[in-house]
Structures are given as C-alpha cells and as structure tokens.
C-alpha cells in the first residue's frame, strides 16, 4: 500500500484529531466535501463537530483560531489556496506572530497553505508565499518536500507553541508516494541531506528538491556529483547544515519556486556569505521563478518556474568557474 503526500497530510490531521482533543480544523469546504483537494476527506464524519466549514472570511478564520489558541486549543486552518491567505495576513503577521512577544501567551496555530504551481492554475492559485511569511518575526515556516516530512512535520506543526505556516506543495500532492509513514522525523529546524555529493551544494525545499534531485541524476552521468540539501523549514532555517555542506563542496546554488526579490534564496545566500564567505570557491548562484505573476498557460508556467534542466545548466556553469 502506498501513501501519497496528500494522504500523509490527511493522516497527520487524523492522528492529531485522535490524539489531542485540543485540535480542530477550520476552513472552507473541509467538512462534507473534505476540502478542495480532499486533505480532510472523511474527517468531519470521523470527528463530528471538530472539522468545520468556514464562511469565505479568511481574516476571521485566522482571528478566531488565535482566540481559540489563547484559550488552549490547537487549531489547524486550511486555506483553500495559499494565495487566499493574503486577505488574512494581518491576523497572521500582526496578531498571531506577535502574540507571544506581546503577552507571553503562546499562539499554537497551524495554517495550511496549499502552495505552488500546477499546469493551468494561473496567477492566483499557484503562489509560493513562504518568502513572504518568513520575513515576519514570530512565524515558523515549514516547506516539506517528502511524504514522510509532510506527515511528521504537520504533526510537529500542531505540537509547536508558535504559529506555523505549513506550505504544502500542490504539485506533490498526488505525484509523491511512500510505502509507510514514519513514527518520527527530524525536528523542523534541521535540514536534511537529500543526496550526498562533492562538487556543488544545491539548497532547495519543497517541490524544488525534486527538480534538484533530477538535475543531480543527470549530472551524475556527466561525472558531476551534486549534494542536495533539503531545508525542510525555511524560517528559521538550518544554516549549520548548509554551511557544512558548502564547506565540503565550495560551491552553492540555491533553488526556490518563490519570486526572486528577497526570497529564501537571497536569505540563504546572504547568510552563507556573511558567515562562510571563505568556504566558497565560486560566486553563489540562485534560481527562482521569474519576477512576474505565475502564468496560466502550461507552456509559460513551465518556463516561469525553475526546472531540472535550468538547474543542471547552472550547476555546469558553477563547476566551470
């Protein structure tokens, strides 16, 4: 029996609901329908009254989760698409993210953002907002790249006492599978070496880990050994693991699907060069989506976001430095 990335998210929520009575889920169409992507399939039936359909009021959805968290609950909010979280951002970054700092009362809410592009989704159903939320103090921003991480990190997100932005990638929902869900995983603030290599370090997260791995497979045939670091969590992120990988390879390429200006890539590069400048034999490089909205047409979309081909080409250039 195999389990998809999407099913792992459902399983994690089921387990959280089962194990912890403080957990409930709130979001549009998550009850009878089981969510636009079916991430809460049957949960409303299994846990009556704890998986609730919300009106189209993202601000109030998040605000109410904050209030419930103050009273000791551990709400999970499903945004129908990451993009719609923009109308709740004030509650997220100004109310939830500052609550502990202002009042010493923790705000353990998890906000699930179905993120990233898919062919034909267009500019308002494709956004990657991890870079946006990471800018704000007080949020933990998770970006799982594997089925296992989708499962254990979501459980961790619910456990953590801070507001977590859980960026689950829609492209991976049904494309990634694993055999069996793990009991435990790495803590979110630890990156994972997804592939070992000696020549170049690629730092990636979420769906881009798989593009990086595909590029690494290709480059292996060309005798270039790429090390792929999966950040797993982008705020905070595990600089130590990144630096020690760069210490081995002396070359860094960052790959992320969000927009270039001030994104994860620029933060990783800035952190690496301020703390590990001497480790680098070549200028660090980055590949992002293009700096335009995400296009609708699949042929435009395919070029807008980073692909394994573009990554491989960048690695080759880095090796020739």
């Amino acid at each position, binding site marked *: 029996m195999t389990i998809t990335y999407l099913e792992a998210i459902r399983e994690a929520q089921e387990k959280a609901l089962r194990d912890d009575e403080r957990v409930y889920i709130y979001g549009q169409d998550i009850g009878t*329908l089981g969510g636009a992507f079916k991430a809460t399939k049957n949960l409303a039936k299994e846990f009556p009254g704890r998986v609730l359909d919300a*009106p189209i009021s993202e601000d109030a959805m998040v605000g109410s989760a904050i209030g419930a968290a103050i009273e000791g609950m551990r709400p999970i909010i499903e945004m129908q698409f990451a993009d719609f979280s923009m109308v709740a951002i004030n509650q997220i970054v100004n109310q939830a993210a500052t609550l502990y700092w202002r009042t010493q009362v923790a705000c353990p809410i998890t906000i699930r953002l179905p993120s990233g592009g898919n062919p034909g989704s267009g500019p308002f159903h494709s956004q990657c907002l991890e870079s946006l939320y990471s800018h704000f103090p007080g949020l933990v921003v998770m970006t799982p790249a594997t089925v296992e991480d989708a499962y254990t990190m979501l459980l961790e997100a619910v456990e953590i006492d801070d507001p977590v932005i859980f960026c689950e990638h829609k492209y991976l929902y049904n494309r990634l599978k694993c055999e069996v869900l793990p009991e435990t995983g790495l803590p979110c603030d630890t990156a994972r070496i997804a592939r070992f290599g000696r020549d170049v370090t690629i730092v990636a997260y979420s769906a881009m880990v798989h593009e990086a791995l595909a590029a690494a497979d290709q480059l292996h045939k060309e005798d270039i050994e790429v090390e792929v670091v999966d950040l797993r969590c982008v705020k905070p992120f595990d600089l130590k693991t990144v630096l020690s990988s760069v210490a081995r390879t002396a070359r860094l390429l960052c790959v992320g699907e969000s927009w270039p200006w001030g994104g994860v890539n620029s933060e990783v590069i800035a952190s690496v060069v301020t703390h590990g400048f001497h480790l680098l034999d070549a200028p660090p490089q980055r590949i992002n989506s293009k700096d335009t909205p995400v296009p609708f*047409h699949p042929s435009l979309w395919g070029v807008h976001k980073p692909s394994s081909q573009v990554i491989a080409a960048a690695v080759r250039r880095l090796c020739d430095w």
Partner: protein
Amino acid sequence: MLDTLKQPKRGVVSPVSREQYVDAFNWMLLARTVEEKLASLWRAGKISGGVYLGKGQEAISAALGIMLKSGDIFGPLIRDQAGRLAFGESLIDVFRVHFGSRTSLSRGRDGNVHRGNPRGGYHAMISHLGSLISVVAGALVARRFQGDTTAIGATTIGDGGTSTGAFHEAINMAAVEKLPLVVVVVNNQYAYSTPNSRQFACSDLVERATGYGVEGHSLDGTDLQECLEVLGQATQRARSGHGPQMVVGDCLRLTGHGEHDDASYMDKTLSQTRLGRDCLKIAENYLQERHWADHVLLEDWRKNAKEQVENAVADAQHEPLADPAMETWCPYATKRIASAVLVR
C-alpha cells in the same frame, strides 16, 4: 475592442417588451451553448485549468448585461457568461482564453473567468472574492471626476463572496460616495460545497442593504421576466442618482462548482423547489405562452447559437498558443523601469 459593442438603444423598458425579453433570452441561450461546449472541451482534455459554468444563472446575468449601456462599467464574476456576452464580449475571446491562445485578452497569462478588457469598461477579475467591487466603485469615482454623469457600474458576487471583508468595505464606501453602482448578489445556495446555513445567519441577504444605506431589491433568478424588471429598475435607480443598489437574486447552481465537481454534497430536494427551475426552460415556456416565439423560431435560435459557437471554437483553435519565447517576462508598464529590470 469592446468600445463599439454596446448598442446605445438598450436601456430600461418597463414593462418588459418582447424585444428586450428576446434579446436577453438569446444571450442566455448563447451562454448556455458556449458553456456546454466548454464543458465538453474540458472533458476532452482540450482546456488547461478549470472550467466554471453559470448554468441556472443565465437569466440574472443576461438581464444585467442588457441593462448596461455603452460607456457603462461591468465587473463580471465567474458565472457571468451570459452577462459578458450581452455586455459585448466576442465569442472568440471566450475560447481563446480557455485555450490559452496568444491572441487572447490575457495572452495566455491568465485563463478562463479572469478575462476582461478594463479600458473598455469590462473588468478582469482576480480570484480573491469581493475584491472587484471596490475596483468598479473606483472606476465610477473616476467617471465622476471626469464629469460623466450618465454611466453606471455593475458587478456580481456570490452568496459566499458576501462573507469577505472586501465586499463590506466596498459597498460601504460606495454608499458613502453615493456612487451609481449596482451590486448583484447571486445567491445560488452554495459557495462551492458550503450551504447558506454555514455562510450567513440572516434570513435574506437583501436585509443587508439597509445597514449600508443603499436600496435593496430581490428577484427570482429563475424568472427572466422578473430579472429584467428588477434589474431594469435597479440600474435605472443607480443611473438617476439614487446611489448604490443591492440586488439579491435567488437561484440554484445547476452544475458543479467547476466541471471537476460532481456536487454530490448538494441537498437533492432543492432542485425540486422553485429555486431549482432551469431559467432557460422557464424562459422558453414564457416565450411560447406569450406567443413571442414558437418551436420553429426557438429551434432557429438554437441552431444559430450552435453555429456561432462552433465557428468561434474552430477559429480559436487555429490561433497560436501562448509561447514562452514571445514572453517579455516583465510586469512593468513604465518603459524606463522595464528596461532597468530587464537589463539584469
């Protein structure tokens, strides 16, 4: 391109004339024909992205569309195929955008319902529900500055969309500014799978009008005659200086949320009620009862609609698709900024 498409002869006629009814009916029919085609193209895998249809809402949408005149402003939402056509959208634009043609209004950058030609008064929605209302209101603010005293603006929103903060802020602001804005709330009983009972607690959304200090109207969205009457009145009131009008039309979504959705969550008994009537069928009967059209004429209209649609599809399919090589990948309109960005 839309600038010339509105016939100025249109406007309010009360009581509803044959001419107006037939006009609206034909837009409904054309919209239904377009959408049936879109659905089958989608099933055949010929469209990337979703397809969202307005089946059951054509009467409201068409009636609104024909009440708008040249120079008016229209901000349609996802189920407004009929209104779009009545407002002047060309058929080929519908299919171009669904195919992702390079010549489409958005040049393949956005799809399906997000099309528009804003400088022609035909706004292009973004997905975030409620956020178009203030844009249409702002267009009317501009018209006021420019001394245009005749134009009105209209936009639609679903029962679900009324729960957004954007909806509230926009209507309240339009009321303060006393703008000639018509907001049509189409209560099709569901927001995706969410029924009214999980969306709001008032007994009828039209009760919100008083709280905003705007005029409220109700209509039965399955009855074209009533749609024409009420929307005729509401647009007329807006046009003659009575400020924003909130029209709440009741109907039932006679299709899934999108074509991917089998709508199995819907309360089956609703389709047995008045709400569940197919406005197109009701209108056909009405035409026949009144002797405004007989079988032969109706069949003629149907054939005509089909032909137009088939031609448009054929034409659109021949057009070149979006091509990354032809993309500028630049979101800036200001030349200097664009070149500064592209240099890098």
